[in-house]
Structure formats: structure tokens, C-alpha cells
């Protein structure tokens, strides 16, 4: 679920179950025109739907990195580290436009980018995401 | 059958004198259009009342679908107008009746004025009539906002600016009517309450007074 759906009182109970954090990276640089920004956000949203809806009860979506691409990798990595220090067991970084696989994100447990499932059809993407996240949880769980 | 029912009730409650007192009275020759056709000008008061009854009825029915809320008001009006059977007609009655009632009331006022019917002993009835006039204007004003479209919104803004221009008290009156600092959710509910509860109650009370007085004093004599 989204970070905004959780309030102070419910977190005490939910934090036992919500052990995975999803950090989206939009990858804007400021040169986009408004409609291009909308499209970028829609692409990211469609990606996130693959993860958020099936695993609503275990993954919390945090606010996204809106600006910056590969060059902010170090910064993203640092945030991942902090998130884990705050208590999350797993961190997933997701992006529709930034090729995060090319950079070092040591603290992220899983990186989801379009290149990861470019060869899958629409239904296969869902299946693939499903499996890869299950695998992540089993690996350390 | 109706006669039996009527008799049954009448035996017990003796209602005949009451309704005779209300309905059974002579119409003087000078106000009867059958004698002098020009006497039709004396009908305007009755017509105003007739339209007022239609307004009350159609308004009651409209509230079955209308919601006084800034998000849903327009949608509910659009829905009742386009999706509900006879919605256009019922809202049409209320919409056009609102204008017509002002017209009829104005003609009635002119008749009273030019026949000098406001003179002693009927001054009080003239005053009550004037109060009814203001209540009607108030009903028109508050009802105008309820569809919550652009026209309604800006018309209300203008009206509230006029209220604002009252010396000294202006800003207070404006904020009281608005129910806040902007024309918004609270203005809409406030206007709705005034339109369907407060003003109709005042109107009915005044109408009763208007009618009692005219029965006591009778219609003014011929010119």
C-alpha cells in the first residue's frame, strides 16, 4: 500500500507485516514538456501496478525520486540504506525510464526496470514480477 | 361515496361552517371579469398564489434528487434533468415559475397601487405584501445558486458584493450570508437551508396574514 494509506496508529501493528519498501524513480530532468511528464508518470504507474496491487499487504510504496537519472544512483543507494536501517527488510527500486541495472545500487534487494522484462508479453510481465518478488522473499526469508 | 365520507366527518367535526367561511363568499361585481372584463386585473393576486403553490410542490419533488454539496450539486441537477422521467418538466416548472411568480406579484402590486387599495384601512396588508415581495426576492436569490453552475456562482458573487457595499455592516452581512470567507461549500448549504426551510416558513406565515386581512377588510371598493 501507499505510504499515505498508513497512519500513526495503524503502523504499530502493520509494520510487522509490511517489511518491503518500494522506491520509484521517475527519471525526469526538467526539459520535458508537461504532457511528456504525464506520460512518464503514467509509464511508471503502470510498472508500479504490477508490484503494488498483488502485494498490497507486504509492500509499502514510498515517495519517488522525480528528477535525476543514473547520476543520482549514489543518492538512491543511500536512501535504500536508510530505509533498511529504519526497519524494512527488503528494498525494491523501480523505474520505467532509468536503466538502474547499469549502476551500483548495493543496498537495493531488487531492481525492476523495463529491460528486465522486455521480452515478456503483457500477461507474462505480471507472472515474471510475481515470481521474482516471491523469490526475493524466499531468498532471505 | 365522497358524500358519505364527507357527511361522516361533518357529523363528528362540524366542518361545513369552517369551509363555508373560507370558500363561500360573494365576489363583488367590480372585481368579476364576467361583468367587466377589465376586472381580470384582480386575478393577479390569486395567480401569484397559484404559482407559489406550484413552486412549493415542484420544489418538494426536486429535493428528492438534489444534493446541496459542491461536488454533487451540479451532477445531481444534471442527472435529474436528463435521466429522470419528467425531470426537465418538473425543474422547468420550478425554473420558469420562479420568474413568473415575480412577474405576477409585480402586476398584483401595480393593480393594488393604481386602484389605491393600499389606503386606509388596508395599509398593514400593503406592508405585509411588501414583506412577501422581499421574501420572494430572497427565494429567487438563494435558489439561483443551488444548481452550482458558473452562472449561479458568479451571480451569487455579484449579489454578495452588493451586500458587502452596505455601510459599516456590509462585510459582516456578506460573511454571514457566505458562511465563510469564500463562496463555497458552506455558502451552498446555507443558501439551501434558507431556500427550502427558512424563507418558505416566513412566506407561508406572511401569506396567512395577507389572506386573513383581506377577508377581514374585504376587497377595496370600485374606483
Amino acid at each position, binding site marked *: *500500500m501507499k505510504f499515505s494509506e498508513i497512519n500513526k496508529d495503524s503502523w504499530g501493528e*502493520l509494520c510487522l*507485516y*509490511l517489511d518491503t519498501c518500494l522506491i520509484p524513480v521517475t527519471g525526469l530532468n526538467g526539459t520535458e514538456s508537461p504532457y511528456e511528464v504525464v506520460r512518464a508518470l503514467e509509464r511508471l504507474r503502470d510498472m508500479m501496478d504490477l508490484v503494488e*496491487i*498483488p*502485494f*498490497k*499487504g*507486504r509492500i509499502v510504496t514510498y515517495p519517488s525520486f522525480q528528477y535525476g537519472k543514473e547520476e543520482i544512483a549514489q543518492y538512491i543507494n543511500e536512501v535504500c540504506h536508510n530505509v533498511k536501517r529504519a526497519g524494512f527488510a527488503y528494498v525494491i527500486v523501480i523505474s520505467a525510464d532509468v536503466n538502474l541495472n547499469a549502476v551500483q545500487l548495493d543496498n537495493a534487494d531488487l531492481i525492476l526496470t523495463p529491460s528486465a522484462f522486455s521480452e515478456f508479453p503483457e500477461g507474462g510481465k505480471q507472472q515474471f514480477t*510475481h515470481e521474482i*518478488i*516471491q523469490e526475493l*522473499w524466499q531468498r532471505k526469508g | *361515496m*365522497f*358524500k358519505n365520507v*364527507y357527511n361522516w366527518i361533518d357529523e363528528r367535526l362540524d366542518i361545513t361552517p369552517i369551509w363555508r367561511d373560507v370558500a363561500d363568499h360573494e365576489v363583488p361585481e367590480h372585481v368579476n371579469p364576467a361583468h367587466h372584463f377589465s376586472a381580470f386585473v384582480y386575478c393577479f393576486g390569486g395567480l401569484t398564489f397559484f404559482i407559489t403553490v*406550484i413552486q412549493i*410542490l*415542484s420544489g418538494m*419533488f426536486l429535493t*428528492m*434528487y438534489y444534493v446541496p454539496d459542491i461536488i*454533487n450539486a451540479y*451532477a*445531481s441537477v*444534471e*442527472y*435529474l434533468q436528463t435521466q*429522470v*422521467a*419528467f*425531470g426537465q*418538466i*418538473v425543474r422547468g*416548472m420550478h425554473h420558469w415559475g420562479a420568474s413568473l411568480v415575480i412577474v405576477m406579484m409585480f402586476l398584483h402590486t401595480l393593480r393594488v397601487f393604481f386602484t389605491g387599495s393600499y389606503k386606509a384601512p388596508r395599509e398593514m396588508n400593503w406592508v405585509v405584501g411588501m414583506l412577501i415581495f422581499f421574501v420572494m426576492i430572497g427565494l429567487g436569490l438563494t435558489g439561483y445558486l443551488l444548481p452550482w453552475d458558473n452562472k449561479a456562482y458568479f451571480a451569487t458573487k455579484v449579489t454578495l458584493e452588493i451586500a458587502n457595499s452596505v455601510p459599516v455592516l456590509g462585510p459582516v452581512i456578506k460573511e454571514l450570508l457566505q458562511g465563510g470567507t469564500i463562496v463555497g461549500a458552506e455558502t451552498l448549504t446555507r443558501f439551501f437551508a434558507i431556500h427550502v426551510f427558512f424563507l418558505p416558513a416566513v412566506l407561508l406565515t406572511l401569506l396567512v396574514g395577507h389572506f386573513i386581512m383581506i377577508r377581514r377588510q374585504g376587497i377595496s371598493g370600485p374606483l
Partner: protein
Amino acid sequence: MINVIEMVNEWSAKGVEDCMSNQHDEHESSHKPPIRKEMSRRQFLTYTLGGATAFMVGGVTLPMVRFAVDPILQKKGEGAFVKVAEISKITSEPQEFSFELQQQDGWYSSTASLTAWIRKDESGNIYALSPICKHLGCTIGWNTSKDYPDQYLCPCHGAHYTKDGKQLAVASKPLDEYKVMLKDDWVYLGEVVPNTIVK
């Protein structure tokens, strides 16, 4: 109003008398001077006034009444039911079907993309379960793990359910179910309701 009724009664009574007299006393009646049966001026005026009043009252109130009773006269149709799958395709093994539910509530309309697991039980009843885990809302799957054969399993915290949606672990309630309607070889699904199969 009372006068009108009275007169109608008088009138019709006279009419009946006339018929009777024509049949039985033909000779006698032909000798009598003709009785004028025209209505009086008063009667005519009463009818005209009453008719005009009724017309005006009706013209005003009928649209309003029709307006008010519109909800019960609206076509019900299939209501909120959506055609989802052919009955012949439903087996005793649960299958996943996706569909879109459009709801129209007055001026509110909403569309929801939904999935349902539909199966036939031993006696041939068809029922559809909602795939939303009753624990924290993840999406369950059928037979996804060897540890829980022929069960619905939630990928998040291991809640699992029987074919009927009965909870076996973690979750506190059985899986919700869709209202099912069968018509013309098709399965129609409606709104989500709490599970009724599990006792």
C-alpha cells in the same frame, strides 16, 4: 366536488330508469309528454369548472408524481451483473477470470477491474471467489506452491485458503465471494459479498 358526485349519481340513475322504461313500458311512455333531460346551466358550469380544475391540477401534479416514482419504473435489466465466462468452461478446478464492473448509482458511475476465481462444486453449483487476501489485501493465487496443494495461497504472509475460501492460516476471515447469476449458458458476476459457502 360533492355536488359533482351527487349529480353524476342522479344522472346515471336516470339513465338506468330510462332504459328500463323503454323496454317494459313502451306504450305508456309514448303517450307521456317528453321530459327534457338536458343538463341545467348550473350543472354545465359545475362540470366545466370541475373539469378545468382537474385538468390544471392533473397537469401540475402528474409530471411531479411520475418524476418521484421514476426509480421504481427504471428498467432493472441485469443491474450490476457482468457477463464473465461460459458455463461450459467452468470446471471443478478453480480458474481465474478478469472482468470490468461498471456501477451506476444515480449520478455516480464507477468502473472497477476485477478478477474472480470461479469453480463448480461437487453438486454442480457455480461460485466465484474474490482473490483479495483477507489479511492485508494482497492477491492470492491457486495452487501456486507445492506445500499447499489445491489451496489458495497468498504470496505475502502465507495465508492460505481451501477451495471454498475457508481460511487455514494467518487470515481471520474466509475469502469474499461474488454474487453469481446464471443465464443463457453464461456466468454473470455481481457485487462482492462476504463468503456464504463456508460454514
